[in-house]
């Protein structure tokens, strides 16, 4: 039997395959297909302090090997989550990580304090990289001081595992990664979506109500993989790899580049079973390569 367990700081995952925030709802939707406990973890839909309607329709556009979204963090707010969703999902046998989003540092702190009370949520993912909201999100994530400030202040009130989600829309992502590591982040996850755009030539209008949106899917995989590799070589904290992962080979590539855990995002829209196939594919790979522990893959790129 191969051992698929991995650790992120002191958070243990039964396998390295998790689902990306905003693409797996609150894990309940996955439960309609299969037991969420088959996966290492679920990064829940981005949550804010107050209810948010999100952006106007249309919010998505298909692109070559990918898609744009401009959801804009639609959610019912943290209190609704705590009262109505958390009780339903808290006993899933998997890691549930909440993805928090603020317009101000105070928002992040207030959210974190509420999350602190939830015993079955052992980790938080600070989203400082959403390209689809005016108020904040990416504004924090694209400068070192912004990223540092959010990380430092949340760290003061949060003792469990704190993962900071990085934006790829920067000149040097290792600078941001090092900055948040310096402020006490336990892990960094990357990448969020790339700021992008689609136009309908015939109607001469943007395809999204917000003009620009976030690009995800296999199209971004080579850039995301490069960033994960750079960051894994620049920081000591573990890295969560995200971006266009469609199958086990993709997941293994991210792990070879240095990711301890991977998130499957857009792929699930094309086939909700992909995450399970990835778990199987990693097991199969380990057997073929005579590996006992999945940790042998992590950072195993040979130069």
């Amino acid at each position: 039997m191969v051992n698929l367990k991995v650790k992120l700081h002191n958070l243990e995952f039964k396998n390295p395959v998790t689902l990306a925030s905003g693409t797996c709802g609150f894990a309940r939707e996955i439960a309609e297909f299969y037991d969420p406990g088959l996966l290492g973890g679920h990064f829940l839909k981005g949550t804010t302090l107050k209810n948010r309607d999100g952006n106007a329709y249309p919010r998505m556009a298909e692109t070559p090997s990918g898609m744009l979204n401009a959801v804009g963090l639609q959610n019912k707010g943290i209190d609704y989550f705590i009262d109505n969703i958390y009780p339903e999902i808290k006993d899933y046998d998997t890691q549930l990580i909440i993805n928090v989003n603020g317009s101000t540092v105070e928002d992040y702190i207030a959210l974190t304090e509420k999350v602190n009370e939830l015993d079955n949520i052992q980790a938080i993912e600070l989203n400082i990289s959403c390209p689809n909201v005016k108020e904040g999100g990416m504004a924090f994530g694209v400068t070192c001081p912004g990223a540092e400030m959010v990380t430092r202040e949340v760290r003061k009130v949060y003792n469990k595992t704190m993962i900071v989600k990085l934006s790829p829309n920067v000149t040097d992502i290792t600078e941001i990664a090092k900055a948040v590591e310096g402020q006490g982040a336990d892990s960094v996850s990357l990448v969020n979506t790339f700021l992008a755009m689609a136009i309908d030539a015939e109607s001469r209008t943007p395809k999204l109500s917000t003009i620009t949106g976030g690009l995800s899917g296999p199209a971004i995989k080579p850039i995301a993989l490069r960033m994960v590799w750079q960051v894994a070589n620049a920081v000591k904290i573990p890295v969560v790899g995200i971006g266009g992962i469609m199958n086990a080979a993709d997941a293994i590539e991210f792990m070879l580049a240095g990711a301890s855990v991977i998130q499957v995002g857009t792929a699930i829209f094309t086939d909700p079973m992909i995450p399970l196939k990835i778990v199987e594919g990693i097991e199969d790979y380990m057997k073929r390569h005579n590996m006992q522990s999945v940790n042998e893959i992590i950072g195993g790129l040979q130069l």
Partner: protein
Amino acid sequence: MSKKFVTDFTVVENKKLNSTNFLIKIKSDLILPEIKPGQFVNVEIKDASEIFLRRPFSIFEVDYKANTLSMIIKILGRGSKKLTQIEAGDSISLVYPLGKSFTYPKKNDRILLIGGGSGVAPMLFLAKESGLPIENVDILLGARTSEDHVDVHEYSNYANLHYASEDGSIGEKGFVTQHSVFTTNLKAYNKIYACGPDGMMRAIAKEAKTAEVFCEVSLENLMACGFGVCLCCIEPTNQGNQCVCTDGPVFNINELKW
């Protein structure tokens, strides 16, 4: 929580109905779950270099004995075109069953079903499932020309068929909302159900509201996932933005911000 599946079906038949519509019947090796009119499937388009996401299509017919279901596909763009080239024996992957169905009529209800373009599929399904005597069911189908009309004469067993076409080449000339069954006495119906292009849905909703008749419409918003996780397919409602794929695709017009 409603159980959903990702299942490979085998194409039994791909029948060209007219220049742009195809009826595709597919068969599963597994027993089909219960499927109701208004629900839909999300279909993988294989071997198409420029298509990344699945495409949603309404369920048209279900045969629980033969383990088959059918869709009526209208060629709109690249994905639907590719799909209509599928051949008997080919494999096709479905995520299903998705969405909520229409509210079934009560015994003795008089109902009007209105389908436009590819919106005919769920209307015919509902006519069949309604369980009402034929005289209580009017079905009104609208299209550009007779060429675009899906021939559904076998449904005369379940409903009174009426046609509207923009050029008058079949049935009455004009939009469905200009057809006599629609304009004569809308209040005579207990329930109106409609599926079709956005403009048609809004026109129907407006009249139904005025006449104060119960009316459900099925929406076709752009979708990425189809099962409620991406929040791309939203429609503003009295309960805020709702997902067409899980809260719909069927909505009572009084819920919509139209």
